[in-house]
Every structure is written in structure tokens, then in C-alpha cells.
């Protein structure tokens, strides 16, 4: 009895003066160690007692053991915490020291713009499809209601290949016909991609650039529903209401053919050099799909109507990053590209 009480008292006293985790471990071995711990020895002594003694002493022993173990745990926790606190100041680093860096790359602004636009159109219900850059006259022109004799062929300067009938596509519109032929009607697709125009390059023209084309075919497309989709798109892209208007525009593959204009962002529509004092800037060609184009796509023009649109990405990108020369969009100088 006395042994147990004094062991408990002395242990608790000793714990008060233990100053390190090593001393604590040593004390713990002395008291609770499995082989030679003082408390362990007392517990072994229980074997020689009679039943009555065993029961009452056993109880006392358990209480004392729990008390001692709890005291050890509390002391251990306190010492650890003190150790951490003591180490904090010595572990302080200079946060401005040089560090090892990984390399990071840049996704090209044209790709980013394409992704952003495709993602917005996806939210509006469009699915992205792609098509070949080397095209045939049949898809690039004939299927789009521009037969070989049509004056509209002059509207786009074309790169022709050394194989008769092949060319670099002048627009993403041939994919309208390809999509209708493979996916059927109804459908809603957007077509991002590179297009080619045989024009001299200058600050606003390049012979290769990227476009986005859209096509919706369903039984209840109308010019008004086209207008409504465009308003949703513009709100999503610019993040706010922005003045827009449709006006007549001639493209052989749409009828009615329209051009969508945006209120000039530079002058808020009052007229400036950027908008040639018109207050409006052309954004894209659009309109209801010509019945001959639906027919070329294998879609019944008596049952379905469609609307289509297409615009180049260069101007949007140039506006966003305030770039004044379109040719810089094809710069491969990494010092330039790393800024995007």
C-alpha cells in the first residue's frame, strides 16, 4: 500500500522536474518499463496475494497506473510543445531567398481564345467539331452556294494547290457541310480552325489566321432566335451588355445574309478613328443558312432551317492584349510569347 502511494507521489514529483524528453523517457522506463519498472514490479507482486487482497490491491494499482500514465502523457505533450516553440525562432527562413524553380510554359493566345470561345459556346449548347485545312473547291465553294462562275469567288483570295480542285480553305464554313453530312439534323456545332487567304500581309492582314464558325440547324430556327443566341453569346464573352446590331450583308451561303456589328468600345458609339466614325465595328458575318447549303449537307430545306456565323479571332485577341500588329500573333520569339 505504502509502496504504491509513495511510488505515485515520487513519480508525480519527479515528473515536475523532468526537463527534457530524454529524461522523461528514462523516468518512464524506471516506473512503467516492462522489465524493471517500479510499478511493473508492484504489479508482479500481486501474484502472491490471496483473492481478497488481490481484488482490493488490484483496484488501487489500476487507479494509480492510470494516474501515472496520464501524468506522463501530459508532461510529454507539454515538453514537445515547448520544444517546438523553442525551435520556431531557429527555423525562420528568409522568404526572399532564391529557390529552385521548374520551367513553365505558355498556351498560345490564339489557342486560349479558341478554348475560351468554344467553352462559352459549349455552355450555350454548341458542340465543337473540326475539319481539314486543305479543302476541295467542292466543299469550300460549290457546297456553299458559290459555284465556279460566281462573282463571290473574288471575295476571298484563295491559295490553290498543285492538285486541281484542291485549295487551302478560305473559311471554316466547309465544315458546316461536313458536319451536316456526318451528324445530320438537328445539330448545333462550332468549328474553330485555321484558314488561309492569299493576301499581302500588313498590320491588319495575315495570310493565315484563326476563325470560329457556328451552325445551328433545327425546325424552329428564325432570324429572331439567331439574334437572341448572339445576344447571349456576347453577354457571356464580354461579361456585360454590349450594344449590337444586325445589318444586311452579302454572303452567298446565307439568306437572309447579315453582318453583326458591335458598338465601338473606343468611343462608345459617338464615332472615332477606330470605327471610321461610324460608331459601330463589324464583328461577324451571319444569317440563315441558304437552302442550297442545307441541301448540300443532306438536310431537307423544307423541314429544317439553320443559322450560321463566323468570325476571325485576331481582332478579339488584339483588343484584349492591346496588340496593334496582327503579324505579332504569329511571332515565335519566346521573350514575346512568355508575356501571355
Amino acid at each position, binding site marked *: 500500500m505504502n509502496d504504491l502511494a509513495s511510488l505515485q507521489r515520487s513519480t508525480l514529483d519527479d515528473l515536475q522536474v523532468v526537463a527534457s524528453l530524454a529524461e522523461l523517457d528514462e523516468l518512464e522506463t524506471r516506473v512503467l518499463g516492462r522489465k524493471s519498472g517500479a510499478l511493473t514490479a508492484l504489479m508482479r507482486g500481486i501474484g502472491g496475494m490471496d483473492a481478497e487482497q488481490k481484488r482490493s490491491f488490484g483496484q488501487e494499482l489500476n487507479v494509480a497506473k492510470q494516474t501515472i500514465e496520464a501524468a506522463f502523457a501530459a508532461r510529454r505533450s507539454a515538453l514537445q510543445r515547448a520544444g517546438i516553440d523553442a525551435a520556431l525562432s531557429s527555423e525562420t527562413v528568409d522568404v526572399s531567398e532564391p529557390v529552385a524553380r521548374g*520551367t*513553365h*510554359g*505558355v*498556351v*498560345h493566345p490564339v*489557342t486560349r481564345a479558341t478554348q475560351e470561345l*468554344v467553352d462559352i459556346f459549349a455552355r450555350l449548347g454548341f*458542340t*465543337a*467539331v473540326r475539319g*481539314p485545312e*486543305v*479543302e*476541295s473547291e*467542292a*466543299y469550300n465553294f*460549290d457546297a456553299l452556294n458559290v459555284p465556279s*462562275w460566281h*462573282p463571290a469567288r473574288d*471575295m476571298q483570295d484563295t*491559295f*490553290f*494547290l498543285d492538285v486541281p*480542285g*484542291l485549295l487551302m480553305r478560305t473559311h471554316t464554313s466547309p465544315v458546316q457541310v461536313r458536319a451536316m453530312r456526318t*451528324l445530320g439534323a*438537328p*445539330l448545333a456545332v462550332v468549328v474553330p480552325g485555321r484558314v488561309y487567304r492569299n*493576301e499581302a*500581309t500588313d498590320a491588319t492582314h495575315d*495570310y*493565315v489566321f484563326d476563325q470560329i464558325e457556328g451552325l*445551328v440547324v433545327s425546325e*424552329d430556327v*428564325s*432570324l*429572331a*432566335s439567331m*439574334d*437572341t443566341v448572339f445576344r447571349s453569346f456576347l453577354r457571356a464573352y464580354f461579361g456585360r451588355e454590349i450594344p449590337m*446590331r*444586325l*445589318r*444586311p450583308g*452579302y454572303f*452567298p451561303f446565307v*439568306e437572309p445574309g*447579315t453582318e453583326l456589328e458591335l458598338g465601338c468600345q473606343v468611343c462608345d458609339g459617338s464615332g472615332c478613328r477606330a470605327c*471610321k*466614325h*461610324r*460608331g459601330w465595328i463589324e464583328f461577324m458575318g451571319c444569317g*440563315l443558312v*441558304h*437552302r442550297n447549303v442545307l441541301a448540300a449537307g443532306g438536310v431537307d430545306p423544307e423541314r429544317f432551317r439553320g443559322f450560321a456565323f463566323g468570325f476571325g479571332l485576331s481582332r478579339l485577341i488584339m483588343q484584349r492584349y492591346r496588340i496593334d500588329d496582327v503579324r505579332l500573333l*504569329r511571332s*515565335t520569339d*519566346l521573350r514575346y*510569347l512568355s508575356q501571355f
Partner: protein
Amino acid sequence: MLYSLAWLRQFTPVPDLSDRELSDAITTHVAEVEGVRDLRPKFSGVVVGRILEVSRHPNADKLQCTVTTTDGENRLRIVCGARNIAVGQVVPVALPGAQVLDRKTGAPFTIRDSEIRGEPSQGMLCSADELGIPAREDGIHQLDPSATLGYPLEDVLGMGSDRLIDIENKSLTHRPDLWGHWGMARELSVLLQTPLTLPKAALPKAATGIPVEVGPATELRRYVALLITGVEATPSPPWLSQRLEQLGVRSVNAIVDVTNLVMLETGQPLHAFDAEQVRELHVRLAAPGESFTTFDGTTLALSPEDVVIAGADGALALGGVVGGPHSGVRASTTSIVLEAASFDPVRTRRTAARHGARTDAAVRFEKDVDPTLAPLAAARALEYLTQLFPGVQLAGRTEVELAPRAPQKVGTTLGALQAILGLPLERSEVTRILTGLGCTVRGRADQLEVLVPTHRGGRDLTTPADLAEEVIRFVGYDQLPTVTLAMPVTVLPPPEARRATLLRELPQACALALGATEVLTDPFVSEAQLRRFSLDPSHHRRLVNPQVADLAYLRSTLAIGLSLVAQENVRTSESVRVFELGQVVQGIEGELTADLEGTSYLPAQPQRLGILESSGEGSFGTLRALLEQLCATLRLPAPRFEAERAPAAHLHPGRSARVLVGETLLGTAGELHPALRLDLDLPRTAIAELDVDAILACALAEAPRIEPPPAFPPSLKDVSVAVDEAVEVATLVAAVRAAEVPQLLAVEATDVFRGGSLPPGQKSVTLRLTLRAPDHTLEEREILAAVKAASKALTKLGGEIR
């Protein structure tokens, strides 16, 4: 096309609108206006003067002193900086108090009596820039020597209060009627709801004219030939020459000017032959080998597809395109044969394109000029000639009409137009618009039977959608209501859908996981570049009309463009690690049909991913690590690399590999050939080119099977083996895999060591075995057994376990 507002007002009373209002109204309802040009003078107080004396300025080398008179008596001393002045010239003189424009800024300023470098200057001699008028030459603007001294310049130049409306020709591709003022006046009358009064010209009766014979296959629609006497090739009166010049047509003489005036008014091109030279006319196809010299002396080798207008002795004009030198109006002309013909649009277009002669006439005929316009325009020309020459006589008239055009009928319903536009329409409004445009509208209730006028050509108004466009143009697009469309759901076939996902993920994977920057290189390459990469130009598709002469070939590999990027950046950037996603074009047929019938093929145009690494290391190993990282990022199975000892010529034959996933070949990876590197002056550089469709084929069609976390820990055991250099690491790994080592979960090479105690030609490879049993923790003897089995397999390859 330029339109004179004053002229348009002769046909419909256009109200007084500002430039912006005018431009906006036409842009939003007809076609885009490029600009409105104000012809009203920007100067005031400028009169006609004559230079009497010119002398050197005593104090300035670049100035001269003049004495100039504006009334024949006064002697104004005026200093002038222009070099083109001489005694006797008649020039514009700004007197003190006059307003002119600053030559540089265009801002108005007032002339004062002044002194320039010590010499008095009582006014200013003006250049075109200072007057805001088109310049004919540099320096002081030269006036007609017969101009009356002292007259206000605006009167001498015939400047009035007109404004010009400029519309780009390509917006008028579909509108033959808008190539004349009548057509635009008609549009404005519908738009502004003003009355339209077009001249009701009719050909008077006349004797039979010269014989006109029309040959087969010319596709001529109509030919009107008027024999007109009593004309003279005198200069045009100012009202006529000025109108033409303002509208961009050079004034020639009164007769030619009238033909051009009528063309600008009606849209119908006319041609005048000298009647002395033309006794008969034959409209026929050119004979084989026939040539024709145009009025300006260019000789054209004609095609048997070209239509010519011939006299007795050969071609006089290329039909609908250009006239010849001998048959046209000359100084001695007193009688003419006036041609008002209607040529086939397609044939005219082809002829004009073939001979590079896009004349005002050809540009109009290719738009499908209304054949019923020919006699009207001829009559109108006769009226103008009569106005100019009181003695004009219509001595003969010949008319051949081969393909009369009647108004076409388009049947539709009000409901159909409403459905197309998504807009409720009033029948009365639809009728007003269509009638105003020249249509006849019939039908009851919902029915619309529309007779389309011939002046819109044969193709422009043929369907209900065409009519809907006419209606909405004048109702206004701003009237369209908000109509929410139920968007159709488009489902791509699974491979296409996965392709789209992969293409969406690839750029970010390359940029973020690999740290590479995306570049867009030129899709066109030069012959020299191909040869530098040991590629045969004849195996490449080529442009027949490249923009940059050198860049005529379509790339078949991304390696050329990427290497040029390395070359461009290697001196200025610390590291060059770039990628490109792009189509290449192969000299073989692909799968996509080129025509709508599906009988011919486009060249194969695979989408490629190119990666170039030239950041100091540029070794094959660095590149391989990047590709493994890429596959992991894309959640593809780990790629395999098989040595390629005969790679493409631009790669190092000892440091190149095929990249595979499973049995699918993704592409190649290797270091640039040292010879090419030397040529391009590049450090060690590695480049990979993978096929996007192959990557796609390896992407899992289904989500991978996911196992629960293992219940028992694995044991890792390293085995090092010394082997001959010739033995590839992959061979060692494969041998262990094949050896059926018990409990082997994975084996991977973790280190290669050379040197130390190893003899030359030997390397030590450390393989890490991952061992695990599904149902218990491995015991020591099991681990030893596994190591022993692996070691045995390695020893068989001649290795020595270390």
C-alpha cells in the same frame, strides 16, 4: 461604287440628313457605306490668278518671289515655296482673309497680308492639299489657262453642294440594280417612304439600222444598236465632265461621257462605235487563234469561249468587256453606232478574268444586268446626246432579243415569312416594301404571289427566304424580338468526342506539365528548308500561287518550323522548350472525300504534336522524361521507347526512338542530327513528333479499373547488375518481367552507373523490384526467392549481380 446624292435626289426627294444619318440609314438597310464624301469646298476667298513674274527670294534658297495678278491689273507680291511655278501659269490665289487648310494637319487657317523672310507676301498660291481637293501633281495646283481671272475657285472647279456616298463593290455582288443610281434611288424611296420618279425613256421609231448578226453559243440575251448622226467628239460641258470625274470616271469626250453617264445612272454599260468604221456587226465566239487589241494597245490572245463584236474585217470589241482602238469614237467622229447589249454574266466574267480586264462594263455584266434595261439605257443616251447636240438624228435602230426576261414568280405565305424571321408581320407593310422595290404582290389571305422585277437579276430574289430578307431589311433588324431557341443536342460519336476532349487538354498538358511554350509556325515551307531536312520536295503538296514566293510547300513535318524556332530563340532565351499542335499535309491520299459525291480524296492531313527541347541539356533523356510526364498527365499508359537506328534524316541515328504505347506507334523522338545542328548553329536539341490520332487511340476508351488500397505493404528490393553496354536497360527489365518472379508487382530501372571499378564498356544498372502478396505480408524467404529468380534471369543475359 460612288453615288451622287444630288443625282439620287433627281429620282427621289431624299430629305436633308447628316453624313452620319445618311450613312447609317443605308448601312443598316441596304449595304455598308464606306464613307460619305462632302464635295462642298473646304476653302473660301480663293480666286483665279496668273503668275506674271518669278524671281529668287533674296533671303531664302527654298522660296521664290512672284508677282501675281487676279484681275489683269493689280500686281500682288506673293512668296511661294513650291518648285513647280512658272510665269504665265493660272493658279488658285488665296487673298488676305481667305480660309485654306494647313498642308500638314488639314486644319483651316486664315491668310493675312504678311512678310516672309523680309519680303512682303499679299496672299498665297495654293496646292491641292491646301484646298482639300484631289491632287493632280505636287506643288501649286494648276488651273485651266482659259479660266477667268478673279473668278471664285469653287465656281471654276464646279464644286457644288453635292455629297458622294461610297459603297464597297463587294457588298453589291448580288445586286445588279445597285450598279446604277436608279437602283439606289429605289432603295432610298422605300426606306425613306419618298416617291420614286425614274425617267420614262422610250426609243423613238426609226429606220432599220445596221445589220446585227448573232452567232450560236454566244449566250447573248439582247442587242440594241442605234445609228445616231449629228454628234461630235467635243469636250463635255462642265456639268457632265465634273459629274463623271467626281464619280471616279475619266472624262474623254461628250459621246463617250454620255455612255458612261448612262451606265452610272442605269447600271447598263454602253459602247459607242464610230459609224464610219462599222457597217455591220457580228456577235460571235472568237475563232481559234484569233487575237484582239484593246483601245489602249494591249493585244489579247482570245479563247474560243470569248464573245467578240466583229465588223466585216474582224473583232472590234471584246463583248461586254473592252473596245478596240480603230472602231471607237475619235476626234473626227460625227455619227456613232451605240451598243446597248446584254451579255451573259458567267461568260463575261470568265472572259474578263481570263484577260485580266475587270472593266466597269465587265464588273456590271457579271452581276447579271437586266436585259430589259438595254433599250431604256439606249433611249436615255439618245436623250442626253440630243441635249448636247441639237442636230442629233436617230438614223437607224436594230434590236435583237434572244432571251427575253419576264418577271419571275415566287409563291409563299405571310406565315412562312413570319416563321423565317421570327417576327409578326402586317400584310400591308410587306406589300408596301415589296411593291416599292418593284414587285407585284397578289394573293388572298395568307397567300403571297410575288412577281419579282427583272432589275434584280435572275438569281437574287427566287425563294421565300429572299423575300424575307427584303422585308426585314426595311422593317429593320432592330425590330426582331427575343426568341429563345430550344438548342438541339449534338452528340458526337465516342471517338470524336474523346478527340475533342484530348485536343482541349493537350495544350494545357504540354504547357503546364512539360513547361513548354506553344508556338504557331508557318504552315508553308521553302524548298531550301525541305532540302536542309533531307526531304524530297516532289513528295510534298505545293501552292501554285504562294504569297511569299519561297514558301510554296505544305509542311509534312512540324520539325522544320520547330527547329527554326529554336534557331530564332537560342541566343536570346535561357531555355527553349516549345510545342506545336498543327496539321501537316502528306503526299498521300487521306480518308476525307474531296468532292460531294465521295469519289476523290484529299491528301492525308494528320494532326501532329511536336515538342522541341533545347534548354542546355537537349538530350534524348530529357525529352523522354517529358514524354513520359505527358502521357501520365493525359492519363495514358506509360509509353515505350524502342531504339530507331534508321530515323528520319534530321535525327541522330544513335539517339532516336520510336515512341509506342502498347503496340500503337505514337511517333518518333530523338536528338537532332549533329550535321543539321551545325548547319542551324544549335546546341544539343531533341525533338519529338507524335500523331494526335495515335495518342487518341491509346487513350482509354473506358475508365480504368480501380483497385481498393492494398491491405499488405509491398517490399522494395534493389538488384544491381553489371552488364555490357550493348545490353539495353529495356532488355534487362523485360527479362525480369518474363522470368515469372514470384510476387513481383513491378520492376523499374532506377539508376545506371559507369566507371568506378567497372571496366570500360560495362555499366551497372540498378533495378528496383516491387514485391507484394495480396493476402499476407511477405516473409524474408519469399523476398529472397524473388530476388534470386530475378538475378538468375539477369545473369542469363551475361550480367554479373553486384
